[in-house]
């Protein structure tokens, strides 16, 4: 249901209810008033008839006629539908009918004592006032029909409701048009939005007239800015990735052409070996690009669940053992100090540690060692995962740069994609941890991941003793 229709129905319902209540209230009030006024007239007339009889100034029959003006010529001719003559009966106390007016019914109007009463005579409802004169021994009953009273009230209400009823369609129309005008800013926003292309993320025009719409516009503009910047970074990333993949591809192509063009078997073999190397490297780069996309898509948030990561890290280390063997690097792990991490997505941690280890193995010289240590720090509140190599390290002026995407260190010699540390950094951001790179004591690089723990587990050493020395 459209907002306009909904508002319209609400307004019509509300207006209708108010109106109906007003009509009912007016009707009740009018009825009460009319009853009081007419009752007063009944009693007055009854007393008048009684006093006329008491004064002997009129005979009983004529006295009864006084009330409906039958005896005298009325000064004006009342309209037929407003004709509300009173009826009068005069009864003796003993119960004999002494006289009655022309319009009075044949049956006795009231059998009750003096005062007001209602009765039904000859199928008509009557309102009766009975005045008893004990001295004269008569009862004077003056009455009018309930029907007449209802007609009177009805005509008053009709007079009130009729013009209102005529105004109602106009009111409905006005409400409908006003709603349209009032909701116009929203319509404009909707039109602007629906006519836009998917790539148009420019801010919406401001609606100065409608302060209620402005938060909506501001919200939408804020969202568009965020979407635009996310899209921009995605586009940059894609462009970078496309460029970055071109270099290993042209390496492959060149080596393949060398193998095809050369007639020397040794040169051919060498080119083929280079092709294998390039394929491995391109494979790693593609995997890292996918990792990057996976880490990015993971978003932040999610349920924080305790996770034991020892098995996961063991798996990562196992995957890399053959690479370490090929490179002639000893890979030592110390995961005995078990930490239970406050980590919703252990997979991201796996990706991060894998990248750190791959970097360390790439940097490590032949016959050196790479160590992976996990231990609780800060009295078990956090867990540190450290990867250390004995490679050339990262020059101090590059430390701040290397976590940016596609930035390779000078020492890297083009072997990596420039994504590894960016992935680690992003994964830590998603996991609420942090990555620090420091020159290790005695050369090499110390990469440290610090992640929040659920609670301290295992032996916990004093915090100072396990802090990185650098």
């Amino acid at each position, binding site marked *: 249901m459209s907002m306009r229709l909904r508002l319209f129905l609400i307004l019509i319902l509300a207006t209708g209810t108010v109106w109906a209540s007003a009509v009912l209230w007016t009707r009740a009030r009018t009825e009460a008033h009319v009853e009081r006024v007419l009752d007063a007239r009944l009693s007055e007339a009854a007393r008048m008839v009684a006093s006329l009889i008491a004064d002997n100034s009129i005979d009983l029959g004529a006295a009864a006629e006084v009330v409906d003006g039958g005896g005298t010529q009325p000064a004006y001719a009342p309209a037929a539908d407003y004709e509300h003559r009173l009826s009068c009966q005069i009864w003796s106390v003993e119960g004999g009918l002494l006289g009655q007016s022309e319009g009075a019914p044949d049956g006795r109007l009231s059998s009750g004592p003096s005062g007001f009463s209602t009765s039904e005579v000859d199928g008509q409802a009557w309102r009766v006032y009975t005045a008893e004169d004990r001295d004269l021994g008569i009862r004077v009953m003056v009455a009018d029909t309930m029907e007449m009273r209802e007609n009177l009230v009805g005509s008053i209400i009709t007079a009130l409701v009729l013009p209102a009823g005529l105004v109602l369609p106009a009111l409905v129309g006005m409400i409908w048009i006003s709603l349209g005008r009032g909701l116009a800013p929203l319509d404009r926003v909707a039109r602007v939005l629906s006519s836009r292309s998917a790539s148009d993320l420019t801010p919406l025009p401001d609606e100065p007239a409608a302060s209620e719409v402005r938060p909506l516009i501001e919200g939408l503009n804020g969202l568009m800015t965020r979407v635009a910047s996310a899209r921009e970074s995605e586009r940059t990333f894609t462009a970078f990735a*496309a*460029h*970055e993949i*071109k*270099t*290993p*591809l*042209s*390496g*492959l*192509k*060149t*080596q393949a*052409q*060398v193998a095809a*063009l*050369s007639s020397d078997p*040794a*040169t051919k073999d*060498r*080119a083929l070996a*280079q*092709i294998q*190397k*390039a394929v491995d*490297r391109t494979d790693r780069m593609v995997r890292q690009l996918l990792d990057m996309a996976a880490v990015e898509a993971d978003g932040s948030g999610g349920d924080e669940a305790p996770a034991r990561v020892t098995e996961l890290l063991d798996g990562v280390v196992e995957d890399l053992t053959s690479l370490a063997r090929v490179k002639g690097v000893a890979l030592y792990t110390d995961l005995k100090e078990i930490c239970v991490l406050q980590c919703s997505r252990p997979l991201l941690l796996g990706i991060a540690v894998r990248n750190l280890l791959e970097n360390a193995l790439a940097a490590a010289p032949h016959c050196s060692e790479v160590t992976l240590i996990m231990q609780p720090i800060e009295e078990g509140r956090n867990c540190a995962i450290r990867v250390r190599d004995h490679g050339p390290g990262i020059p101090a002026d590059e430390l701040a740069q290397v976590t940016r995407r596609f930035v*390779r*260190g*000078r020492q*890297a*010699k*083009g*072997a990596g994609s420039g994504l590894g540390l960016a992935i680690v950094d992003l994964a830590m951001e998603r996991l609420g941890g942090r990555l620090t790179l420091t020159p290790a004591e005695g050369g090499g690089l110390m990469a440290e991941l610090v992640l929040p723990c659920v609670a301290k587990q295992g032996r916990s050493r004093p915090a100072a003793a396990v802090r990185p020395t650098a």
Partner: protein
Amino acid sequence: MRILIVEDDDVLRDGLVVGLSLAGFTSEAVATRSEAEAALEAGGFSGMVLDLMLPDGSGLDLLVRLRARGSPLPVLMLTARDRPHERVAGLDNGADDYLGKPFDLQELAARLRAILRRAEGRADGRIAWNGLVLDPARMEGEIAGEVQSFSPREFAILRALIERPGAVLGKSALEERLYGWQEGVESNTVEVHIHRLRSKLGAAFIETVRGAGYRLASEQTRKIA
């Protein structure tokens, strides 16, 4: 024709060195901008193949500095960034040619030959001397109506001699032209190749200058334009 290759990806760098050697070029390859600066300082290059993105700086900056020093060295930029505005930036900053990755090795060699030829002030790709018309693109020469083909090494030496006909090139200068090949230059390699060249071109085509080196004999009879 010694070419300086500046490329940080080691597989591609290796492919360029070997691939260009198959096309008759001798090359020296470096991976970083600072190494490239040092190599340029040492000199002795006829041309440069330059990657745009280097680990320690931009290849474009290197090129701008090179041109600021007044060097006319022919430079071919080789880069993954090959959108039109990037090509324009490269060419306007002093590159002689621009090739996007991935490229065709033979196209690279042809473009290199073209910019080197232009740098020598020649429009024709072929070089003529003393009855020999040398076609660097094919590593072939025509002499006395007969087509002779040369091995890359023979060609490298012949090319070095024909660049400045009449000038004497020492053994070490010729060895340098063979530098960068995978196998080391053995002591007699230059002599072996000179011998083979003489058997293809006639014994008198290359003269031995005792104690100094080799040079091409001066033009005697037919001059082929």
